[in-house]
């Protein structure tokens, strides 16, 4: 369970984001609707890459929080029509937390995730679009801090369902067409397998290098888990009248927090600057 104070804040935060999740991805082809449709409709292969900064607190590992740079790469298939958006994507992240204040302990944090998203256009007006739906997300998060000896390995594996909304809005600003998108998603239900939350986390084994003492499993609900993702993007088409490909650059804030037994909670915030490339295949 979260401490009372944090729980209140978290509840307020969740309400805020659930409300927020009913608008969002906002793109503005300004008065040029044909341009907007040219860059959005179709089936695309996408490739994302990003420079990131992560902040980690894992009470099982330490009572300190660690931060440091990382990177991500993401491949997917993106289908967008005027009535819906669907997307498969496979992400790989790598962080290296070596904040100077705790430079003695470096935490390596590789992770990977698989996500399917489906959004329906619920506001098909001319000047902006709201797509709302949800995503199924599965991710694994591995943390290794060799300096911590037997306590050095921690794992979270999570499967979750998240409502999501994207708002597209196209407006002229500073004499330019800005195709802006705002996205928000928050978790409502999930399931996790974690390395036990107390004591030594593993014993080495002959074959695999590490052998956990047995995973603990539990359902994730808003009282013990929150995973919030928000993003702000600017979308552009590639040069050339007939070029159907496009890209977007943006900032994504991805945050999850999970309550653990004995108040040993885990929180992880990722600040990501991303470049996403979309190549039309159909």
């Amino acid at each position, binding site marked *: 369970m979260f401490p009372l104070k*944090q729980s209140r*804040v*978290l509840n307020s*935060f969740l309400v805020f984001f659930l409300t*927020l999740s009913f608008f969002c991805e*906002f793109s*503005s082809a300004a008065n040029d609707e044909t341009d907007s449709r040219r860059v959005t409709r179709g089936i695309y292969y996408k490739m994302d890459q990003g420079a990131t900064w992560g*902040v980690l*607190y894992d*009470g099982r590992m*330490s*009572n*300190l*929080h660690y931060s440091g740079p990382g990177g991500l790469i993401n491949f997917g298939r993106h289908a967008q029509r005027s009535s819906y958006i669907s997307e498969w994507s496979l992400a790989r992240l790598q962080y290296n937390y070596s904040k100077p*204040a*705790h*430079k*003695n*302990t470096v935490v390596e944090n590789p992770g990977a995730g698989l996500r399917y998203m489906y959004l329906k256009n619920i506001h098909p007006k001319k000047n902006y679009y709201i797509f709302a739906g949800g995503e199924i997300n599965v991710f694994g998060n591995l943390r290794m801090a060799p*300096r*911590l*000896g*037997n*306590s*050095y390995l921690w794992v979270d594996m999570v499967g979750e369902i998240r409502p999501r909304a994207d708002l597209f*809005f196209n*407006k*002229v*600003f500073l004499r330019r067409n*800005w195709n*802006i998108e*705002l996205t928000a998603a928050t978790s409502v239900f999930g399931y996790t397998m974690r390395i*036990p939350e*107390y*004591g*030594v986390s593993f*014993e*080495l*084994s*002959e074959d695999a290098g590490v052998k956990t*003492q*047995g995973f603990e499993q539990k359902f994730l609900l808003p009282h013990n888990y929150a995973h*919030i993702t*928000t993003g*702000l993007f600017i979308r552009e088409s590639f040069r050339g009248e007939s070029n159907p490909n496009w890209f977007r650059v943006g*900032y994504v*804030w991805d*945050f999850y*927090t999970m309550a653990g*037994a*004995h108040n040993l*909670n885990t*929180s992880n*915030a990722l*600040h990501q600057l991303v470049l996403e490339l979309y190549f039309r295949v159909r």
Partner: protein
Amino acid sequence: MDHLHQLNHRSGRSLNSVLSFFLAISLSAAMISCEKVLIKPDASDDPVSVFEEVWSFTEKHYSFFEYKNVDWHSIYNDYKPYVRDEMSPVELFDLCADMLYELKDGHVNLTSSFDRSRYWEWYLDSPDNFSYSLIERNYFRGNQRYVGPFRFLDMGDVTYVYYSSFANPITDNSLNILISNLKNKKGLIIDVRNNGGGSTVNAKKITSRFTGEKRLVGYNHVKTGPGYNDFRRHPVYIEPYDGERFTGDVIVLTNRRSYSATTYFTQYMNALPNVTFVGDTTGGGGGMPAFHDLPNGWLLRVSSSRFYSPDGINIESGIPPHISVDMSAESMAEGMDDILEKAIEILRSGNQ
């Protein structure tokens, strides 16, 4: 009028755009600030906080309070009055080290950039019972082979192997070479004296070469909560290696500096009927340590599990030998290792 209407319409659109843009920026900023609230801030690194963290982590994770009859709360009351905000790091370190010393546990350490606290009494008051120099000068004499982490000597009807640290990785190939040397031998002597431990993986690897069947070697009790008895019990088995093995007589040489994973190894081998221990009681160290970063950058390590033999004996204080032998000064002066000589005598006589 049309012109004015167009102008108003245009400025209204611009205003919308500006508001939309700033709304998006504000939301992003709000998210970042919420993160600061949601992620628990670090504890302070002042002396009082560090002392409290040392004490409370130990309170929640240490596994032998009851076994060692230690009243940790009483110890807190004894040491807390000496903690002052104006203490120097060295003074604070020494105070915390003294408090941890009360646990009398070699797996309890506080590590800073300028010192590492430790408890070594478990062997300082015992006979040394080992001299590598003596082995090297009087037994090896340059005839030993280096196979992976092992130094082994073919003594004709007996093979002697010295393994200095369970932290040194062992490959299957190293063990295959070692085992293949044991054909037509009366037995093997494995010397783990002064072996301060390392990985229990290596202990299991070696043990699996000397058993023909799966054997229960003990129970690992893993901490599951802050209570003194919050543990989960895991049985530990050794499976016979699927390849070259030796099921003849084996003698293991131990002394008080055979610590931690070496004590585990001794316990694993203890479950095999063809193994005899000669020398001194091992140093113990039966609790796998948990590690903890402190807010000032120091590292705390405390025993956080327990290991029991199949008949319920806690190995924290060490495992006694079947045949107790101390090295005498007279023998050493003559270049003799009494413990090794006893092992050779047992194997050659066949009276294990």
